[in-house]
């Protein structure tokens, strides 16, 4: 049963002690699976998402292949025990079906898919623990896994949500802020190219609030992008040594 709304901003701070413009703690790992061509684990606050990439590989069934490009296939999914409350049934929900599309479309503009005609690039996003921001963590992780798999990209894609809670525009909503806030706006971009590849709004914003929130999101995306590059650089150096 939904509790009555808690106060989300106290003395200018958020319930987990952050300032409005702070990200939660981030941890990223790449190459964590043996079989997948690329893989990554992204943790942001209590949210933990695994992404794995296979490809470019043959398209099965064959009739799905496209003569001039690789198709991207994407599945976002929450493990049955990843959420608070009841066990989630393994049947795909409408939300999971929508987010699989949204994540795919956030990645499409970055992938040089015309380099692999008739191939498939498969992206699997598995939510291990959900405490807000699983789709954005999923995009961030998928982008790392694509890089880990050696798929050529124009740029990495990084993502984060912004929102409005108790009237304040904040970065990187956690679960409670998402549930009781006034607006949740996940954004994905290719930071060095300044291209927005995903933008959703769930909630109400005035045009001015939107501008402020959008700018904050792009800032946050930049920070996440630095993390991504760092973890890839580290991995690359490790391999080199």
């Amino acid at each position, binding site marked *: *049963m939904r509790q009555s709304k808690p106060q989300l901003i106290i003395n200018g701070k958020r319930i987990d002690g952050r300032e409005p413009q702070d990200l939660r703690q981030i941890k990223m790992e790449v190459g964590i699976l043996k079989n997948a061509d690329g893989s990554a684990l992204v943790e942001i606050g209590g949210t933990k998402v695994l992404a794995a990439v296979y490809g470019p590989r043959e398209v099965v069934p064959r009739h799905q292949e496209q003569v001039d490009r690789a198709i991207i296939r994407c599945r976002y999914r929450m493990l049955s025990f990843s959420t608070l409350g009841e066990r989630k049934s393994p049947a795909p929900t409408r939300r999971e079906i929508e987010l699989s599309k949204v994540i795919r479309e956030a990645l499409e503009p970055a992938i040089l898919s015309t380099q692999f005609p008739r191939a498939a690039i498969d992206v699997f996003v598995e939510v291990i623990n959900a405490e807000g921001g699983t789709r954005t963590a999923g995009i961030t992780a998928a982008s790392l896994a694509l890089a880990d798999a050696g798929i050529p990209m124009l740029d990495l894609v990084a993502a984060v949500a912004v929102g409005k809670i108790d009237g304040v525009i904040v970065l990187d909503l956690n679960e409670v802020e998402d549930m009781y806030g006034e607006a949740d*706006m996940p954004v994905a971009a290719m930071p060095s190219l300044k291209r927005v590849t995903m933008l*959703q709004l769930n909630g109400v914003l005035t045009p001015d609030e939107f501008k402020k929130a959008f700018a904050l999101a792009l800032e946050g995306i930049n920070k996440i992008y630095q993390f991504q590059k760092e973890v890839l650089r580290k991995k690359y150096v490790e391999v080199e040594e």
Partner: protein
Amino acid sequence: MSSTPEIPIIPKIKLDTILNVVTKGFHIDKRPLLNYRNIEVVKNVAPNADSSVLVKLGHTQILVGIKVDVGQPFPDNPEEGVLIVNAEYIPAASPSFEPGPPDENAIELARVIDRSLRESKAIALDRLLIIPGKKTWIIWLDIYVLDHDGNLVDAAMIGSMLALAQLKIPYFEVDQVTGSIKIDKSRYTGSLSINRYVATVTVYKVGDVLLVDPTAEEEAIASASISISVSEEGNIVGMQKRGMGFFTEKEIEQAIDISLHKGKELIELMKRFSS
């Protein structure tokens, strides 16, 4: 799995023609880029529904019907009534639609409409409650795409708002002893309360140009689109970027401006149709 869709092959010459016309500031049917096609509305097309509206936006035809029913409120939201939005692209509507359960496009359309109505509090869901936590009216809103000639989301939102505005809540009695609800659909308790009108304006990017209300041919060559829902107070109450392309930051800002402006027009139109 969501999979890169097959793009209809458009002959190079036709593609060039469309791009050429669009770049000059017009749709291929000669409208300015930011003008909608003619909008027609037919009410009560399915009398067995509790409300129904056929919307024609150019050649695009969308049928929205509502059934109401008594049921339980969601356990995580016991103080509100229930609105369930579904959408289906019927195979009659386009040679590329196949029979079967709604695909990701239909699901996304329904969810975009649903979120925009819900977050904007467009309808008074709290007034649908019959017995708090136990019994409520459930509104089943079903969107059928009958003929697809582009810009389905905007048309679907017009149909959804108008069907809701027309909806009458049946007469009912609560049995004080058993708590069971007796419904009499031949009489009405009253209309559904509309708190505010909401319009969705989808801005499409064709080449480097932004436009609204494309035909299916134009839509097929758009690289991306963004559906922006706006309320009659001029707030943004929902957004969804779609498609395999991207927007620049500046394009996003332009799209917001367009949607606030055009949304106002659509809301005025809806109000006219409703009265």
